[in-house]
């Protein structure tokens, strides 16, 4: 799998992402500077990593969403190319119109860093085939603005079309406000676009990929992508 990790000023989880991709796909990603206007030829997966692009100033992701490279990313997505947008990447993708909705301040208005539990809602997508439907995974989150919000119709469509891939749940996999740490609508942690080739999610699977570090629940997401690309080829 040939992947490209976008680097915007203020992004800070690009190294974590590159390490995870290298570990699991066996191939180091290209690091692509925001001022570039094209992606490396043959890119299978574009990753918009986490961090604080442009300091999260104005609105999280707003400034990065308008940088030159994003036109190339839109084109890539329109051609059906895969885009994985994590945390600040999710915010950027929403601001760029790649995904619907917006990520607001966490309900309790605090930045929260802790392991959260996600229920994998379906396993028949490139972004979740590495898991079983209903499986609960534990991954860290680290954000102040992860509270997913969209108008009622959008939410209804997302649900009806099964575009919610990951939801905040209790360790037992039960929907429970107490485990929806940022207050997201319908405990939404990750969604895909209509076409299903762009995933935005707040938590950080890339930080749970090494057994020696205590948890590998994040691996499945990347392994699934690698498998998907391999089959497509």
């Amino acid at each position: 799998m040939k992947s490209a990790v976008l680097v915007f000023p203020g992004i800070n989880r690009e190294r974590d992402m590159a390490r995870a991709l290298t570990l699991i796909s066996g191939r180091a990603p290209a690091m692509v500077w925001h001022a570039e206007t094209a992606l490396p030829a043959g890119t299978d997966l574009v990753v918009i990593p986490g961090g604080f692009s442009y300091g999260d100033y104005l609105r999280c992701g707003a400034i990065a969403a308008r940088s030159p490279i994003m036109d190339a990313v839109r084109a890539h997505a329109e051609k059906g190319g895969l885009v994985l947008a994590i945390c600040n990447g999710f915010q950027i993708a929403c601001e760029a119109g790649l995904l619907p909705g917006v990520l607001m301040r966490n309900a309790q208005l605090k930045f929260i860093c802790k392991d959260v539990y996600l229920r994998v809602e379906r396993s028949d997508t490139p972004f979740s085939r590495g898991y079983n439907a209903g499986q609960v995974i534990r991954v860290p989150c680290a954000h102040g603005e992860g509270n997913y919000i969209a108008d009622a119709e959008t939410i209804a469509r997302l649900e009806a079309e099964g575009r919610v891939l990951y939801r905040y749940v209790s360790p037992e996999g039960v929907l429970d406000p107490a485990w929806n740490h940022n207050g997201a609508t319908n405990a939404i942690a990750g969604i895909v676009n209509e076409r299903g080739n762009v995933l935005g999610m707040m938590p950080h699977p890339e930080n749970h990929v090494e057994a020696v570090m205590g948890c590998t629940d994040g691996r499945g997401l990347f392994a699934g992508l690698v498998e998907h690309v391999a089959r497509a080829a």
Partner: protein
Amino acid sequence: MPGLVPGIHGLAIEKKVVDGPDRRGHDAAAVCASFDYIRHMIPNEPRVTPELVAEHGLKPEEHERILKLIGREPTVTELGIFSAMWNEHCSYKSSKIHLRTLPTEAPWVIQGPGENAGVIDIGDGLACVFKMESHNHPSYIEPYQGAATGVGGILRDVFTMGARPIACLNALSFGDPKHPKTRHLVSGVVAGIGGYGNSFGVPTVGGQVRFHPRYNGNNLVNAMAVGLAESDKIFYAAATGVGKPIVYLGSKTGRDGIHGATMASAEFGADAEEKRPTVQVGDPFAEKLLLEACLEIMHKDCVIAIQDMGAAGLTCSAVEMGAKGDLGVTLELDKVPCRETGMTAYEMMLSESQERMLMVLRPEKEAEAEAIFRKWGLDFAVVGETTPTRRFIVRHRGDVMVDLPIKELGDQAPEYKRPFVDTPTLPVISPADVTPPMSTADALEKLIACPDLCSRRWVWEQYDHVIGGNTVQRPGGDAAVVRVNDGPKALALTADVTPRYCEADPLEGGKQAVAEAWRNITAVGGTPLAVTDNLNFGNPERPEIMGQFVGCVRGIGEACKALDFPVVSGNVSLYNETNGRAILPTPTIGGVGVLADFQKSATIAFKAAGEAILLIGETKGWLGQSLYLRDVCGREEGAPPPVDLATEKRNGDFVRELIGEGIATAVHDVSDGGLAVSLAEMAMASGIGAKLDASPAAAHAFWFGEDQARYVVTVAAARAGEIMARAAKAGAAALRLGVTGGDALTLGMERPILVKTLVQAFEGWLPAYMAGPDVT
């Protein structure tokens, strides 16, 4: 004399500087003449009056010293520079003679005190660069920005030396939770530390939080940063080479936190209101860009010398570069990127605007470096050059505003041998003098829910402690463990001090702070290597406060020597007092240790039921200054537990061996709250209970005494006997306490306490407290 008059217009001086040897330095008379003349040429330059001198915090005798040094009255800008260079913060004038006594050497020390941060060799060609620094007063004035800029400053100290920051810690002291301002300070400081570190992209992995009425009005924010560099690619402040361009990098200069808060309005003119010195605001985004840009140009070998602009920004950094390199420096303030209009030389020289650096670049690499900085969108300007004159010359709008001997600015700073009185020793409190007001079980439940012992989760969950993907041990254990690159090597990091001990007995308290840092590193299996110390005290002009300082530094020195744990960096913060009431003496110790293999690190959580629980170290039942005595019996009394450094070393080395051999399944040192609290923490971390044998001594003293040099260790039951024998051979006192298992913690004959009841009490207090109204 020729050259002098034109010199006033700044022309001949420049020529001379460029042409090398400058005689002006040797011609005091000429200098005076030129300056009397100059002062008349500097627009609305006020006279230096005794009041103005006082407003700059300079004592009359210090003013005398200045006159003797430069042979004339300084200009107002020069006065500002002296006040900045000679204040306590930059000159260490009250503490220097005592700091010199600290042990700062070991085979693995690459750079001790004296640079932006300390540097130690951790093997494999890698160096660990670290330092702790306080930002106490600013955090009281504006908690969010004060704490944020504190983190920014210490991160800069670390990456200025060529290291990429891989972890931050912070030690926080707040006033009485009931004090109306406390909650506001806690929420602001914690949000500020998180707000800066999270955005910058460094994991904040550890620290301390304490509450005590003595910090009402003077909360403490001590921030520590730890970075990694290649041991042969460390960068320093000392400039080399004459006529080298001095480059300004980073954010623009504004009127942020200018020291001369009291600066005569005469200089500011009518719109003084608008120009009033302002609170420093941190820009973690700019700092992140500065980090990446600096590391990139260092990697491309463009840098000869580099110095961050911290306290007294442009002044300190320029003087340090010149003085350390035995060179003069000339600055052209008209070239300094400014954020605001009409800034005076005084303001530019003393501005503490954040996210700025000063560098001397290899001339041939200047273009390459500039391109890199432009790419990162940072300001880049050549603002001066190095000269052979050993003079510090500052020009602005065609005037020479400053012309001072550069080395003397630092070297000739006053140095005080302040009078001090030793803290009277307090009586030792024997267990018999303390009547337990409640049962041991009740006391334990009360203690783990008290402000100083309850869970700090509410704090560290606001810090990104996993970014980097290397945090092996997250906050909540004895020391944080952070993997070095891809491992297997890792660093063990901790910050410690027990101020109530320091107050009761500065010498023992100083020893204890170092011993506890050493113990926490040991408890995770690390080999302690070196420390940074952040010495927070009251007014050193009061002999009893100076006595606390001297005692603590002596204690720190003794412990660092005995434990082979040298001091490689640090910071002093004095005058932390309000209305003559000082903070508790708080010498925070930041400790760094190394693990050869992070997979061999021990954690505090019990691992399985049926394992033997051993106590390493002797228990006399020391209740003096214990949290039990304070928070359960309501008595803040007595001598603190003594620290026997030989025993510390013996017991610690033994425990580290057990961890290294994979024999110890869980390890936790015994500190605040004593044995019962350590056991409760091990149970809560695992959800596994334990059954402990009845106490061999008076129960309250045995379970809650704070005797030092102790660790709780679990091992497979089958090996318990063998380990006990080994301890005896190693000369480490050991006691078999009981066995793990069940869902409750049972101390001897006491009622069992469900682990989940303990967890509720432990996790409950801080969130509940912080949920109250945030009154500003």
